[in-house]
């Protein structure tokens, strides 16, 4: 109904969000389960968090994942921001259509294809598979997400600000770093976070491009899940969900404050 907050809307919102959240909430609750059986409640306990911390294979996989995610997110943010600037600022250069196509295609490319093709590339050029190859692979697909996020901010950016800075004698590079970058910073940070979580999360591409000795956390989780559901996996999943939730909430709070300050100031 016009402008109203009708019963139909409330029901569809409730059902929709219940569908989205009940599985995650159950997973978190059962990570505190005393019982080894994931589906039988045996009382509240932190013991699976202890077991998780003592599982050295799980912890070393987490360490590999954290390093891959940090490096690839940072590289992807630099490359993706450059791509976004190139695509919004320069309307004509040779191969622009191909470039813009390549910057969007990885977003919808099935992971099995991206993974297989990158692996075959690494084999063809004789690069040893392991930490480096996973990092290169993650940088490649994550930079496209960064490019999309930053581009959507850049198109609304008032270019005359940058031009004014250059008229006042700033070099283009300086104008970019002192005028443009601070304005698009929220998008760049959001892009970094997105790249980081994408890397943290990726199973398929990492499985294709990793070699002996470089097992990421999703690969470890996957191999354990195939053997059956274990409370330890619930515990590590809860930790990951917690990190992501805090990160996303903090970022949105930060953006809100910033927007408020901009409006006032």
């Amino acid at each position, binding site marked *: 109904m*016009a*402008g109203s907050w*009708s019963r139909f*809307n409330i029901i569809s*919102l409730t059902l*929709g*969000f219940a*569908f*989205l959240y009940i*599985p995650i909430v*159950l*997973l978190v609750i059962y990570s505190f389960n005393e019982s080894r059986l*994931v*589906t039988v409640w045996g009382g509240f306990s932190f013991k699976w968090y202890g077991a998780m911390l003592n599982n050295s294979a799980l912890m070393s996989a987490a360490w590999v994942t954290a390093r891959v995610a940090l490096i690839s997110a940072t590289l992807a943010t630099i*490359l*993706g921001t*450059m*791509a976004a*600037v*190139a695509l919004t600022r320069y309307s004509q250069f040779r191969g622009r259509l*191909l*470039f*813009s196509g*390549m910057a*969007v295609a990885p977003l*919808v490319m*099935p992971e*099995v*294809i991206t993974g*297989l*093709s*990158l692996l*075959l590339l690494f*084999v*063809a050029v004789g690069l040893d598979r392991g930490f480096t190859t996973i990092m290169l*692979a993650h940088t490649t697909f994550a*930079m496209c997400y960064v*490019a999309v996020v930053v581009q959507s901010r850049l*198109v*609304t950016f008032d270019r005359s600000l940058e031009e004014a800075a250059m008229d006042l004698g700033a070099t*283009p*590079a300086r104008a970019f770093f002192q005028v443009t970058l601070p304005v698009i910073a929220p998008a760049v940070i959001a892009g970094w976070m*997105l790249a980081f*979580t994408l890397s*943290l*999360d990726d*199973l*398929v591409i990492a499985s294709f491009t990793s070699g002996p000795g470089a097992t990421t956390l*999703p690969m470890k*989780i996957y191999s354990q*899940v195939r053997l059956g*559901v274990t409370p330890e*996996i619930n515990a590590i*999943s809860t930790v*990951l*969900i917690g990190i*992501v939730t805090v990160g*996303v*909430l903090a970022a*949105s709070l930060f953006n809100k404050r910033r927007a408020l300050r901009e409006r006032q100031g």
Partner: protein
Amino acid sequence: MSRPSPSLLSRVVIWVPYLWLLALFLAPFFIVFKISLSQTAIAMPPYTPTFGLSEGWEGLKNAFNSLSFDNYLWVFGDPLYVKAYLSSLKFAAISTVLALLIGYPLAYGMTRAPENLRTIFLMMVILPFWTSFLIRIYAWVAILKPEGLLNQFLLSLGIIKQPLIILNTDLAIYIGIVYSYLPFMVLPLYAALEKMDHSLVEAAQDLGCTPIKAFWKVTFPLSLPGVLAGSMLVFIPAVGEFVVPDLLGGSSTLMIGKTLWAEFFVNRDWPVASAVAILLLLILVLPIVYFQRVQAKARESEV
């Protein structure tokens, strides 16, 4: 503007990411194509190179003569692969429709909510999208198992007498795909519906339309760009989905992503895996190009 062309800087900004994508996104496809034309071998890497530039022109000519489409014939000759392609398309299409049916009312409800609640709802849709895909699928395993939480719940209410078998069936795959890709459907729908001028619906109703008729005549057509973008974002990756059919589907479930994975990791047949990938790509080229067109248009209209 009387600005000297910032030539060096602009060249760096354009060419660094461009070359990166050419080397790590486009070039690999040519390698996949090349290997799909070579022979399987018991070696590491497990294929005989079909054409390499190291042997010079003569080698290239010889290699060209021994170029083989065997892997493609093999894929087409085996009904298993053809069935896997078709059933992937079926799973993806039905999941897309289901995601639309669930996502549309959700997105619509969000846009009709009071302003301060809207941002919170938007956050709530985005949050699962940031949460690990693998973990979210894993959560469903514990719910859908025969002795899982859903069956316990339904049994305790007395709604069912026997546990339902859902895990390792097609139904579980639909649940998994719809669940994991729902945010991709809701966000473009929300963006399209939020932009809409609601006074148009009011006008239609003032002119005598019932609310339902006003929805189909005004709201839905105006949200069509969102519907298309959302559907593409669900359909395309769902066709090649691997994790969902592997963890939630049964051993007899055929999906091409799973087939490709098995070809590569279990059979270690890289040439056939490459042929499967090339054919999957061919199936998806049309929707991908269409999606890019829609995206480009949307971006231009924003400017």
